[in-house]
C-alpha cells in the first residue's frame, strides 16, 4: 500500500491526539496504572481508529501492518513513540499485539478481531538470543550439531518456562518453535498451556507477568519454507527491536518533559535547579540520549528488508542502557520526589528497565553479533 510522508505525518498526528486525549488521561496518576478494563477499552478504541488492526484480513495503516516503505516504518515507530509518551506499558502491549498480527498474516492464520485482540506474541526463546546460533541460522549458514541443539533448546517450550508480560486476559499466543532445523510457528490457546501468574513485576504495571510452558501437544503449527521462515523471523526481530527502541524513545520524551518542567520550578540554594551545572549536566545527558535515539530511529526509517538485523541489534545494545541512564537522570533531577510512585519518574525508570530486558535482553546481543558478523564464537 502506498504511503507518502504527508500521509504518515497525518496519521501520526491522529495517534498523537489519541495518546494525549485518551491514554494520557487514564495514565495521569502513575501510582494507579491503567487497569485491564481500561486497557481493553483503549484497545477497542485504537482498533476503531485504525491504530491497531481489526482482523488479519483488513488492509489499513495500523501499526506494523506495513513495513515495506520508509514512511510506513516512520509511522510504526512514531506511533509507538506517541503512545509510549502516554504509557510505555500500553505501547508495549500494542506493539506485541500488532506483531502477533504480522506473524499471523505471514503464516496464513485467519483471525477475527476477538481472536486477534486476545493473542500474544512471544518473539524469542526462553532466554537470551540463542547465543551465536540464531544469527548463523538467519544468515543461512550451515549449522553445526551444537547450533541445532542450541536453537532447539532455545525454542523448547516445554522444559523452560517462557516469561511473558501481557494483558491479564490474554487468550492465546503465537510463538516460534524449532522444527526440522528451522523456525516454525505455533498458535496455542491459553487453556492448552501451563500458565502461572507472577507477583507484580518490575514495570509495565498495566500488564501482568506469566510463566508459560507447553507440556502437551496442542495448537496449530505452521512450518514455512526455510527461506520464508528466515525472512519472516528476521523481519520480526528487526521490527520487535525497533518497536522496543521507539517505546523507549517515547518514555524518554515524557521523562525529558518531566525533568525540564521540574528543573524550571524547583529552587535550591536560592536559584532554580536548572541553573545549577549539576542539574544542567543531567538534563544534557537526557538531551544527548534523545538526540542519539532520534538519529537511530531516523536511520532505520527504511523498508524493513533493507535493514541489517545486526545493525538494529547493535543499536539496541547501545541505546537501551543509554535510555535507562537517561531515565535515571530524570529521577535524579527530581531528587526525593522522583522516587515516589505518584510523581512519574520512577514508573518511567521501571518501564525503561523492562524494555531493556525484553526479547532476550541486551547482554546476549554481543554473542548474536559475533554470529552475525562471522567473528569467531
Amino acid at each position: 500500500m502506498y504511503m507518502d510522508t504527508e500521509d504518515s505525518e497525518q496519521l501520526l498526528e491522529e495517534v498523537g491526539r489519541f495518546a494525549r486525549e485518551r491514554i494520557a488521561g487514564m495514565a495521569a496518576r502513575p501510582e494507579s496504572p491503567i487497569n485491564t478494563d481500561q486497557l481493553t477499552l483503549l484497545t477497542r478504541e485504537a482498533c476503531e481508529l485504525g491504530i491497531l488492526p481489526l482482523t488479519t484480513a483488513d488492509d489499513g495503516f495500523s501499526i506494523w501492518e506495513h513495513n515495506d516503505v520508509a514512511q510506513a516504518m516512520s509511522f510504526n515507530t512514531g506511533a509507538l513513540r506517541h503512545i509510549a509518551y502516554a504509557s510505555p506499558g500500553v505501547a508495549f502491549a500494542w506493539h506485541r499485539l500488532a506483531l502477533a498480527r504480522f506473524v499471523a498474516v505471514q503464516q496464513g492464520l485467519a483471525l477475527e478481531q476477538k481472536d486477534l485482540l486476545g493473542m500474544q506474541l512471544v518473539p524469542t526463546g526462553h532466554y537470551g538470543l540463542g547465543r551465536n546460533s540464531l544469527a548463523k541460522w538467519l544468515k543461512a549458514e550451515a549449522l553445526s550439531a551444537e547450533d541445532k541443539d542450541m536453537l532447539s533448546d532455545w525454542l523448547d517450550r516445554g522444559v523452560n518456562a517462557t516469561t511473558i508480560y501481557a494483558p491479564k486476559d490474554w487468550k492465546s499466543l503465537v510463538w516460534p518453535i524449532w522444527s526440522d532445523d528451522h523456525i516454525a510457528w505455533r498458535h496455542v490457546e491459553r487453556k492448552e498451556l501451563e500458565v502461572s501468574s507472577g507477583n507484580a513485576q518490575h514495570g509495565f504495571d498495566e500488564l501482568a507477568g506469566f510463566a508459560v510452558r507447553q507440556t502437551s501437544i496442542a495448537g496449530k503449527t505452521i512450518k514455512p519454507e526455510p527461506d520464508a521462515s528466515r525472512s519472516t523471523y528476521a523481519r520480526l526481530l528487526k521490527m520487535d527491536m525497533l518497536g522496543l527502541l521507539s517505546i523507549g524513545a517515547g518514555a524518554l520524551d515524557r521523562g525529558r518533559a518531566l525533568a525540564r518542567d521540574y528543573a524550571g520550578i524547583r529552587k535550591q540554594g536560592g536559584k532554580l535547579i536548572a541553573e545549577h551545572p549539576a542539574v544542567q549536566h543531567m538534563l544534557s545527558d537526557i538531551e544527548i540520549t534523545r538526540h542519539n535515539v532520534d538519529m537511530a530511529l531516523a536511520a532505520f526509517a527504511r523498508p524493513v528488508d533493507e535493514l541489517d538485523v545486526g545493525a538494529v541489534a547493535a543499536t539496541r545494545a547501545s541505546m537501551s542502557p543509554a535510555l535507562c541512564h537517561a531515565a535515571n537522570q530524570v529521577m535524579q533531577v527530581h531528587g526525593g520526589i522522583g522516587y515516589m510512585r505518584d510523581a512519574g519518574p520512577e514508573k518511567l525508570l521501571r518501564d525503561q528497565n523492562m524494555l531493556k530486558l525484553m526479547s532476550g535482553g541486551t547482554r546476549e546481543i554481543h554473542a548474536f553479533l559475533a554470529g552475525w558478523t562471522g567473528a569467531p564464537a
Partner: protein
Amino acid sequence: MNKQIHLEGHLPVDHRLSPHWQFSNLPLIGRVLANYPVNDLWETDFARLPRALAKQRRRARTFAEQYLMPAADELDLAVHLPAGECHPTAHRILCEAGKQGWLSYFMPAPLGSMPWGTVLHAPIWQCSLIVEEFSRACGGLMLLLSAHHLGAMPLILSGRVNNMLRYLAPVYRSCERGEPHLIAFAITEPGAGSDVEEGHGAEVYRPGVVATPTEGGYLLNGRKCFISGGDLSKTATVFAALQGEGMDSWTCFYVDCSDPGYKVARTELKMGMRASGAAEIELTDVFVPSDRIIGGLRNGWALNRATLNASRIPVASMGVGFARAATETAVEFARRYKVGGKELIHYQDVQLHLATMVAETRAIRSLVWQEAKAAWQPRQLNASLCKFHATDRAQRVCEMAMDLLADHGGKHENKLEKIFRDVRLTRIFEGTNQINRLTMVEDWQAQLLDFDHSVGV
C-alpha cells in the same frame, strides 16, 4: 553428587597445569608465601575482621536470614498502610530486633547493646557491617531498623552525657525489652527533593519548621518531609530555625511524637524500601521544653552535618549489601539455569559478567571498610565520597544482574527487581549523589586553595 569437577573452559583443580593444589607440596617457605585456602569470599573477609566485629557481622547475617529475608516479599508487596499503622510482621521483627540488640548498638552496656569488644573500633564500622547484612536481606526492613540510629545520632553527637542517660538510655532499654521505641531524624523540609539541606546557600531561607520561644521552652510549627521511620517513631530529633532567624539558627529539638500538635500527615508511596515508611510530619504548636534542646541553641546545623558524616558511610554499606544480594542472586541463576544443555555459568561471557560484578561489589566493600575503619571522627570528604561512589557502583551491579537474567530479570520472584528498587534510593537520600560530590569538594577546599602545596589524592 552435586559438585562438578570444573567449569567449561577451565582446568580441573587437580590438573597438572592448575598449580593451586601443588602449592601445598612446596617447601615450608614456599607454602607460607604461596599456598592459600580456597574459602568462600564472605568468609575470607570475615577472617580479616577484628574478632569482635566479625562476631557481630555473623550475628547480623544470622538475624537477617532468620527474620528479614523471609519477610521481605510480604512487606514489599503489602498494601500501603495508613500513616502510623505498623504491619504486624514488621512489628514482630522490630520487637525481636530490639531484644537482640539491633536497635541499641551504638552504645555499650549498661547504656546499650554494643559488645564491649567492638568498643575499640569506630562504631561506624560496626554499623556498616550490620547494615550490609540487613540490606542484603531486605532494603525496607534494613531502613526500618537503621533510620532509628540516625535519629538517635544527635543525642550521641551532642556530647552531653545527660542527653544519653536521660533520653537515649530509656529508648535503648525499651527496645531491649522488646518494646520498640524508634527515633526519627527530621531534617528534610517541604519542597526539598534533591538535597536534605535545601536552605543551605539560599539568599532568602524560608524555614520549614520554626521554633518560637515560649515560657519554659519552644513551640514548633511547620512541616518536615521524607522522614524515614517517622510514621512509627515515638520520639524525633527535629531541626528547626529559631523564629526570625536563618538557617544558622538551626537547633535540634528532641520531640515526643505523642505530644499535642504532632501529626503524621502522610507516608509516601515509595518505589522501594517499602517496609519502611517515609513520613510527612506536621507540627502545630508542639511544645518542647528547653531541656529537650539537644546540643544547645543554634548548634543544630553542626549536629546535622556531623550526623550525616556519620551516616553516609553506612549508606554506602547499604550499596554493598544490595550489590552483594544482586551478585549472589545472579550467581545462583547462572549456576542453575540451563541454556543449550549446560548451565549459564559454563559460558565464558557469563563468567566475565559475574567476575565484574563480584569485583565491583568487593571493591566498594573495601572502600566502605577502609573509610569506616578510620571513622572515629568521620570526615565529610571521605563520607560523601564513599556514599556516592559505592551507591552508584552498587546500582550498576544490580543492573548487570538484571541483564544477566534478561527476560526473567523483571520477575518479582527472581528478587532482582526489588533489589533494584531498593538500591535506587541510596543514590537519592542523605543528599543526592550530585550533592554528595559537591559536599566532598566543599570539604576539600583547604587543600585545593592552598597554592603553597600540591594536592595529594
